[in-house]
């Protein structure tokens, strides 16, 4: 049994970055919001500050609760089969200067306590912080990436994390489409379908094949150790521009809400490593309910 557990943990470790364990962290509850309704968004949220960590250091965070109870004994943990995902610290997009030196803040979401409850008796768990600045080899910024269409991007941080990224050109997407169509034709013919039906299938495949939008950037990414936490653009002045990442036909598509990346923009890849992903145990007790 022990051997099985060891093997299982090895498999898990191979698939994800193991966060560094740290000493317990001080937390300060700054707001309690008990939103009570039979409708949507009914939850208890504790807004907490981390006095020992600067806001500008934390690019993403998540809270892993092991215990949350009110003083009536009600369990406040939200049941879930999946671990919560790292949540991007969106305030980094618009804050600058001294504002980034303020304490980092996170939200802890739980089920509503009983109406009879007067306080949150205990909340215990771990706060995981993604702090890229702690590992210089975890951030790759590729300058003027837009002129590298069709090429593999080169950066020592990508190499250090076993990440391979290729900018995919329109011609390469078209070639992939044709290759896929040829495979579809061969497959249909092998199954004995008539010529007209095969043609319909191939045409349908071609029409349905992914077509990027005008402002999209298409990448081919290999990330066997699942290191990539996020990808953003960086403009010429260094301002971070968020992007949405979608998977399409094996490609990674970067989209923005409006802007097309300019020729002088950079592509920033943030990667999780054992040095920049830190888990802090924390305990909160006896928080009065509003």
């Amino acid at each position, binding site marked *: 049994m022990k051997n099985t557990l060891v093997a299982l943990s090895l498999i898990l470790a191979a698939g994800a970055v193991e966060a560094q364990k740290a000493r317990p962290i001080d937390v300060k509850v700054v707001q*309690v919001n008990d*939103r*009570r*309704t039979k409708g949507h968004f*009914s939850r208890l949220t504790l807004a907490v500050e981390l006095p020992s960590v600067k806001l500008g250091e934390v690019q993403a965070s998540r809270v892993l609760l092991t215990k949350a109870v009110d003083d009536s004994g009600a369990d406040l943990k939200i049941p879930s089969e999946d671990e919560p995902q790292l949540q991007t610290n969106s305030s980094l997009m618009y804050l600058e200067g001294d504002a980034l030196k303020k304490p980092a803040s996170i939200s802890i979401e739980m089920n*509503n306590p009983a*109406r009879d409850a007067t306080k949150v008796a205990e909340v215990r768990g771990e706060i995981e912080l993604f702090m890229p600045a702690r590992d210089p080899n975890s951030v790759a910024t590729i300058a003027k990436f837009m002129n590298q269409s069709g090429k593999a991007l080169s950066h020592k941080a990508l190499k250090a994390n076993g990440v391979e990224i290729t900018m995919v050109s329109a011609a390469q997407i078209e070639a992939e489409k044709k290759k896929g169509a040829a495979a579809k034709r061969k497959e249909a013919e092998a199954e004995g379908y008539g010529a007209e039906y095969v043609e319909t299938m191939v045409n349908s495949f071609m029409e349905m094949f992914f077509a990027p939008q005008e402002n999209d950037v298409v990448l081919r990414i290999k990330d066997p150790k699942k290191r990539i936490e996020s990808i953003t653009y960086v403009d010429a002045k260094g301002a971070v521009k968020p992007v949405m990442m979608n998977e399409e036909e094996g490609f990674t598509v970067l989209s923005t809400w409006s802007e097309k990346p300019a020729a002088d923009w950079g592509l920033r890849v943030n990667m999780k490593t054992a040095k920049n992903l830190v888990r802090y145990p924390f305990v909160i007790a006896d928080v009065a*309910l509003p």
Partner: protein
Amino acid sequence: MRQVVAGAFVLLLGVTVHAQSGVKLELVDVVDDRISAGMMRGSLQLQANLTGTGLDRINAARLIVKEAKDDRGNDLLADREPPDFSARNVNAGILSVSLKQPPRSSRSVSVKGTIEMFVPARDPSTTLKVPNALGKLDAPINHKGLKAAKMSITPLSPAQYAKVKESQKITEADLEKIRAEGKAQGVDQKEIEMAIEFAQLMSEMDGPLPENAIILSGKEKDFDRIQSLEFLGSDGEPINITSRSSSTRGDDVLQVLQPSGEVPRNATMQLIIMTDKSKMSVPFELKNVPLP
């Protein structure tokens, strides 16, 4: 167990109120948003919808609360202006009542008030057709219907709009006034500064005027009475307005409409306005609404 469930069901049905008009008020949700600190204040909100007969004649409605108490006798009547009328085709027709936050130990609330409804069919003068509405810019529209309704609307040229916006820029004197008012009301200095920062941010958000924009100016009390404002094409059908934005400074309102194409200067403006005759109200009572 079944009896308990049946009992709860009867209790919920108890908050459905038959009003004299055949219109009923049905509770949809109760949101007790309890906040310990910070800029946001907690509130208790009851959300209800109108049911019953004749609803298709009602264009907009609002709930005016006259009495609100929890089961411990605490007065929950909030000290605020009555809400605006809410169009029936917005937010599924749901009407809201905002009350003071009851203590955590409260179990239920009871509310009395009136449902105010705007029924255009009760008064033909609610619909005004103003021909050639954009014929003369930067001067109040001269129309007997508007005069009879004691309303004034001025279509603006882009140049005049720019002048008005310039005159509305937040000055240091405005900021001092906000600070003084906030201080007098006992608002925390940090919160006052955050509110000022927000106001400045909002004032800087105005982008350039959209192409073919129609700009209307007037007083808030007049715009508040307008339930619908359209421009009619040569076929008599409303021209598609893709976006509407409105800004208020003091009593003055600026409204910018973005039509999908150019609107002829001689286009007819069609207004549906609220008149005393078009309004009707019926009492409502929500008894023993359980708090979540």
